[in-house]
């Protein structure tokens, strides 16, 4: 299995690697924050199509501004603000294009409402945690995905059946996997997460 050597590097080192021409570092960086950048426009009420455009724009802005990011440890916050700005620009652009005043007014309301600061922090954490989840490997990745990221949430009996493990081992395994995840987050530079 070919592994990406940059997967668990902290943001400042990833940025440095990107600037040194490492394509794989860019892949890790973008994948790490993909959920944050993509979820913000959806929270603002933009369509999936517009959210895709915002995602591309923010990715490009990140690439263009990598060399000038002053506080590389706060990349998540920079991305949240930049994405918010792109949502605002997208809304402005649409308002200029549309002739349907009613639609524009609805969009404007959505854009002003948007996610709160707390929501943005949650999204940032969720994005990074899902990146850490991908680094867990099996069987932890499967177990936590079933327990936390599957709708509707399956019962322990169902989880045990799917993973072919005794039901009684789910609790201890769950704890071990969460502990492992916190260690990965620490390696990634998110020791307070």
């Amino acid at each position, binding site marked *: 299995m070919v592994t990406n050597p940059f997967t668990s590097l902290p943001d400042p080192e990833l940025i440095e690697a990107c600037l040194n021409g490492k*394509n794989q570092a860019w892949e890790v960086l973008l994948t790490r924050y993909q959920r944050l950048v993509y979820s913000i426009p959806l929270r603002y009420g933009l369509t999936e199509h517009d959210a895709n455009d915002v995602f591309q724009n923010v990715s490009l802005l990140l690439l263009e501004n990598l060399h000038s990011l002053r506080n590389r440890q706060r990349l998540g*916050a920079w991305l949240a603000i930049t994405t918010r700005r792109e949502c605002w620009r997208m809304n*402005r652009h649409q308002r200029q294009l549309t002739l349907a005043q009613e639609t524009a007014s609805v969009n404007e309301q959505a854009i002003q409402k948007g996610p709160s600061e707390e929501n943005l922090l949650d999204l940032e954490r969720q994005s990074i*945690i899902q990146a850490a989840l991908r680094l867990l490997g099996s069987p932890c990745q499967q177990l936590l995905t079933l327990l*936390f990221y599957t709708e509707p949430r399956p019962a322990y009996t169902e989880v045990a059946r799917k993973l072919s493990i005794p039901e009684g081992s789910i609790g201890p395994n769950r704890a071990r996997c969460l502990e492992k995840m916190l260690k990965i987050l620490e390696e990634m530079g998110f020791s307070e997460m």
Partner: protein
Amino acid sequence: MAHPSFDTLLGFVEETLSPEARREVENHLSLSCNDCERLIARIQKLLHSVQGDESAAPQAEVLEKALGLYRRHLKESKPAGIQIIANLLFDSRLDMSASMVRGSAQTRRVLYSAQQIDIDLQITPAKGLHNLIGQVLDSTRPDKFIPAFVSIKNNETGMLVDGKGTDDLGQFGFQNIQSGRYDLVLEFDTQEVEIRSLELIKEI
């Protein structure tokens, strides 16, 4: 001092421990164990995040397209847009007569201008921090509000602190800003206006 295991602390957070086991953890924490307190806080944040996750990922082809951007050259700088530095027209902190008229008023009012754009700022102290609200106006038509996206950056560190779009009345606001020097960047459709080195200081 033997620390409770991760399993035990997880059980403590999720309230699944027996009363005796819970008491043991509480006794341990009462000895001011910073390591365990920190770990408990991390477990709480982790559970909060995984249990309430409503984030969405872009489709694979959207991510793929963005990954492909790297193949282009890393640009050294953004394409230069039109950038204008705003001029200070009025600062109630510097205007003694205005301060005296206002008496003990805590709100500081600052007015900047850049070409046809006026930026009216009000800075209010809030428990050692500062709340900043502002309005962007067309100086030729006081009833016209100009939409902008406003970013606030720390002037000393260059760090982007926050950013918001103006509302229907051209207003924006940032809360709980720490004392320091800040740059405000107002982005319009075709130009940027920058207010440089706005000082937010604690009033004595």
